[in-house]
Each structure stands twice: as structure tokens, then as C-alpha cells.
């Protein structure tokens, strides 16, 4: 009976570990050098800052945001980092958040999951939770 419990538990722990591993080990490093343009836009669609940034192999979006933009605040949510503040934009991730558009397409990944590619355009737009 005890062996059965341990075997079932081990299976569950493996599932749990596998899921956490999947969430925490997303490859987000750039595979080559390049240039990316980043726009920060507030809730009223005003362009706060627009910058073209050069990146090297191994760089991540979070790293280049911290290096080239002011007041960058990210928070670790247990599995990955989320962007809460940048420049004059402040969000709480509950009623407001920073929407990420990659090449004018709504990104299904957060700042920790986006792999930088040459000539990529990233818009960081302050938005209210859409309900």
C-alpha cells in the first residue's frame, strides 16, 4: 500500500516538475546579432519613447529593456518575469497591464518568452484589462 502511494506520488511529482520545468526554461536568448525597434505607448496612445536597440547573440528582451529604458520594473510571478512598469507607465497587472505587440501582432508570450530577432518591432502599450 505504501509502495503504491510512493509510486503514484512520484508520478505526480514528475508531472509537476515537468510542468514547472516547461514554464521556467523557455529559451528566450537571441540566436544572433541584430537590431530591434521598441516603442513605449501610454493608455492614450501617446508615444512615450521610441528606440532602436542593437542586440547580440544571447541577449534577452528583459536585459535590453533594463539597459535602454528608464524605470523598468519587472516581477517574478513564480515561473517567469512580467513587465509592470517602464518609463512613465505604471501598471498593477490586475486592472492594467502592458500589452506586448510583436510586429503588430498581439504577443502570446510575455517579456521572458520573446526571442529577439533582427528587424523585430516591439510595441509596449499600456492597456486596461479588457472586460
Amino acid at each position: 500500500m505504501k509502495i503504491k502511494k510512493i509510486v503514484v506520488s512520484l508520478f505526480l511529482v514528475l508531472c509537476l516538475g515537468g510542468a514547472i520545468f516547461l514554464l521556467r526554461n523557455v529559451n528566450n536568448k537571441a540566436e544572433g546579432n541584430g537590431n530591434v525597434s521598441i516603442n513605449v505607448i501610454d493608455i492614450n496612445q501617446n508615444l512615450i519613447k521610441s528606440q532602436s536597440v542593437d542586440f547580440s547573440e544571447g541577449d534577452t528582451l528583459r536585459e535590453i529593456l533594463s539597459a535602454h529604458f528608464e524605470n523598468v520594473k519587472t516581477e517574478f510571478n513564480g515561473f517567469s518575469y512580467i513587465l509592470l512598469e517602464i518609463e512613465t507607465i505604471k501598471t498593477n497587472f490586475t486592472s492594467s497591464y502592458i500589452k506586448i505587440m510583436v510586429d503588430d501582432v498581439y504577443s502570446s508570450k510575455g517579456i521572458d518568452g520573446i526571442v529577439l530577432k533582427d528587424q523585430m518591432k516591439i510595441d509596449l502599450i499600456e492597456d486596461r484589462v479588457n472586460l
Partner: protein
Amino acid sequence: MKKVSDLTLCSILLCILFVQEQLLTWIPNVQFTGFLIVLYSKVIGFKKTFLIVLCHTLLDNLIMGTFLPTVVPFMFLGWFFIPLCLCSFLKRVEDPYKLAFFSFIQGFVYSWLLIPSGLLMTSLDFKAYLIQDIPFEIILATSNALAVLWLYKPLSKVLRENLKKHEL
């Protein structure tokens, strides 16, 4: 007197349920909420568990800033699924393995019920949302099942003994 003691009991159990979830919010989907609702459903019955689940859902959404018609009913249904099943056709089930399996399934049911509100909030494509939600569903389901498997028997014994001792 019975009603006052019942209300006090429900308040204490609700407090435990709510506080543990708030304490574990830093690890998304790892929580004892599913396990505790399973325990409550089995030990204190449908009516009291229904009340606890309702209050917990309202409180949780008030605190988290998601007290919205697109979230509250779906979350309530997700948690209410537990007493609904365990106090009806699974009433006689006491085996921790079967209850752990039920909790595992409930983890997925709960996540699927919250897909419409998640889609409304993020405006993501359904397929993309579904795929990205899978690891979170697995985490909720497995943490639910593990907690039930290891904690249900000892804690249900303690709770039953105490309820009997205090004539509740």
C-alpha cells in the same frame, strides 16, 4: 446555539482556506484550495461547504481585483464542482486514491471553466491560450492530487474527531 456554532465553524474553515491561498499566490496554481474543499465536502457536508466556497470565491476576487461578472461565476462553478460531485454520486467514496484522481480531474475542469474569462481578458487566440495554459493546468491538477493523496486521511481524521469532541 447550533446555528452560531455552525457559522463559527464555517468562518474558521473559510479563514484557513482563504489564508493558505493568499500565502501561496507567489507560486501560481500551487495551492491547497482543491484539497481543502474536498476535505470540507466530505467532513462537514454540502450546505456548509457551499457557503464556504461561495464566500471564498467572493473574497478571493475582491482581494485580487477580479470581482467581475466574467470571472466570479466561472470560478465559483470550478470550486463548486467539488462539493457537487462529492456530496452526490461520489458520496460514498473515501479512498484517498479515488479522491486524488477526482482532484486531478477537477484541476483541469477548473482551468477549462476559466478559459472564457481568460480569453476575454487577454484577447488571445483560443488555440494559443489553450496550449499555453496546459502547464498551469498540470500544476494545479497534480498539486491538488498530491495534497489529497497525502493529507486527506490524517486531516479528515483530525477534523472529524474535533467536530465530534465539540459536538458540531
